[in-house]
């Protein structure tokens, strides 16, 4: 019984040796790990590419949702968390550094006859009070409500804006992330969901049969998010815990600077520097 164990320990020892070796090699440069929101991650991937240029820093950007980002930061598994919502009351020991804003808008299949919905109408649709477009002046067609996974930053921002809690939402379909939300709305006639404006605009330009609905009188456009007239917006932020290291402080200053505003605008978000 004990004989096979000896080779086993040898293999472990070799693995360990490799790990230490890798750690030693890397210690010459600073390594920053960023985890969190799938909305912020693509932005930070571009920004860190520019940031690494000419600096002795290696960055690793990983996605997995805002809450995962916060958890990793608290456990010391990352240096910076990326979040696409405001910090919650239970997270006040952390510091958020907002780098951009993103609008969230109701998204409908192109065949939905309405272009404008008031917050009250949205509330009626998403709580299931209205389940046919005819009740809002459209044709006799069932409303298919698409929501996002419970706890997702987009859904928290959208629900909070409407003053609803998760259990009040009567959805027919739940989408896992933005791309699936857009795809599902585009193949489901009479459907309505919600999505980051930035994510939807690219697909609309591409010809996907979807449209963003105006909120009250304000069309869901990047201009209206930038000038503050569009109300349902959320901050995209980097979050740190306690004292920042020089490298982290440098990255945060860089991410808020005018140097990266083109990256942010290209990805259809609104830089805070504007």
């Amino acid at each position, binding site marked *: 019984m004990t004989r096979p164990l000896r080779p*086993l320990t040898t293999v472990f020892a070799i693995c360990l040796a490799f790990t230490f070796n890798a750690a030693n090699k890397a210690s010459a440069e600073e390594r920053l790990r960023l985890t969190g929101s799938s909305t912020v991650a693509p932005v930070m991937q571009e920004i860190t590419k520019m940031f690494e240029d000419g600096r002795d820093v290696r960055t690793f950007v990983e996605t997995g949702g*805002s809450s995962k980002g916060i*958890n990793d930061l608290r456990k010391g598994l990352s240096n910076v968390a990326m979040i696409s919502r405001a910090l919650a009351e239970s997270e006040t020991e952390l510091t958020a550094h907002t780098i951009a804003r993103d609008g969230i808008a109701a998204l409908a299949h192109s065949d939905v006859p309405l272009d404008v919905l008031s917050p009250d109408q949205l509330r009626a649709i998403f709580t299931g009070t209205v389940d046919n477009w005819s009740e809002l002046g459209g044709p006799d067609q069932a409303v298919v409500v698409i929501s996002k996974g419970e*706890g997702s930053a987009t859904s928290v921002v959208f629900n909070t804006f409407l003053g609803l809690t998760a259990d009040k939402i009567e959805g*027919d379909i739940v989408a896992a992330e933005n791309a699936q939300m857009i795809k599902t709305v585009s193949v489901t006639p009479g459907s309505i969901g919600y999505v980051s404006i930035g994510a939807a605009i690219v697909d609309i330009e591409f010809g996907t049969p979807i449209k963003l609905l105006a909120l009250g009188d304000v069309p869901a456009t990047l201009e209206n998010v930038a000038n503050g007239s569009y109300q349902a917006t959320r901050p995209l932020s980097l979050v740190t815990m306690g004292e920042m290291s020089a490298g982290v402080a440098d990255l945060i200053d860089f991410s808020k600077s005018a140097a990266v505003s083109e990256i942010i605008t290209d990805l259809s978000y609104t830089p805070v520097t504007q």
Partner: protein
Amino acid sequence: MTNPQVSAAPALSRAHRPLGSGVTFDGVLRVALAIAFGFACIIVLVVAFVILQGAAPALAQISWARFLTDPDWHPMVEMYNMTPMLVGSVLTSIGALVLATPVSLAIAAACNFYLNPLAASIYRRILFVMAAMPTVIFGFWGLTEVVPFLGQIKAPGVSLLAGVLILALMIIPTTALLIDVAFSKLPRQLLNGAYALGASRAQTCFTMACVVVRRAIFSAALLGLGRALGETIVVVMVTGNKAALPTSIFDPIRTLTANVTLEIGYAAPLHTATLFLSILILFMIATGLALLVYKLNFNDNTQVDV
């Protein structure tokens, strides 16, 4: 099986020739296998431990009954009814199994008894390609083609039925190939005997061959069931993921796997623990299935030795 005295007799066989300083090929192989065996055991135990550890807070803080009796699944407001997901997982995978097994059997029968050898080998190659296809392709095809089609019959399209159809399509290549292998291993004399008695192809295939390989068919079906049960990306894309009990096959459902994928990224600690519990339930079902397959293959005295 083989007589050890006979196999030990040729003293110069390669396995027993010393490689130097008393090390034999057999000895090296024995150690290598021991290591592989040890790792396999450790990995399964570590996985079980991590899942149990992850689910522990949920089991400690929420009573068992609440996972069945809470009004709904809304972890953000502390409602944890998991029945819809359990029912969703069972319905989609059983549905896929019921649909896929007869089709797989028909394909395997065609390859062995009806098609000429060239056509059968082309058919098998196509099945191999389909079995190796990443499941996300099935999911995407389902979402863009099957779902809108079902939506025309009854809105919203994403549904239990869509999940069953795509999953069945996904597991057919695997189960068909497994049954095909069992058929092709049938002893020649059995087949010749059947034909000599004047049995038609259909009689040979369905009244003789199917009976002889029935255990293989059953374990192929169970392996397909296990695959359908564990599939995630396909069901997330085509079943709608609504955490409610379906009233018809056109209603959206959510499976245990989809539940984890949808929410783990956003979950607060206790919510995460309940998702680990979803995984624990799946792990137990999958282990049960694997043990059943094992029992069928190795504890069977009735089967003709093929």
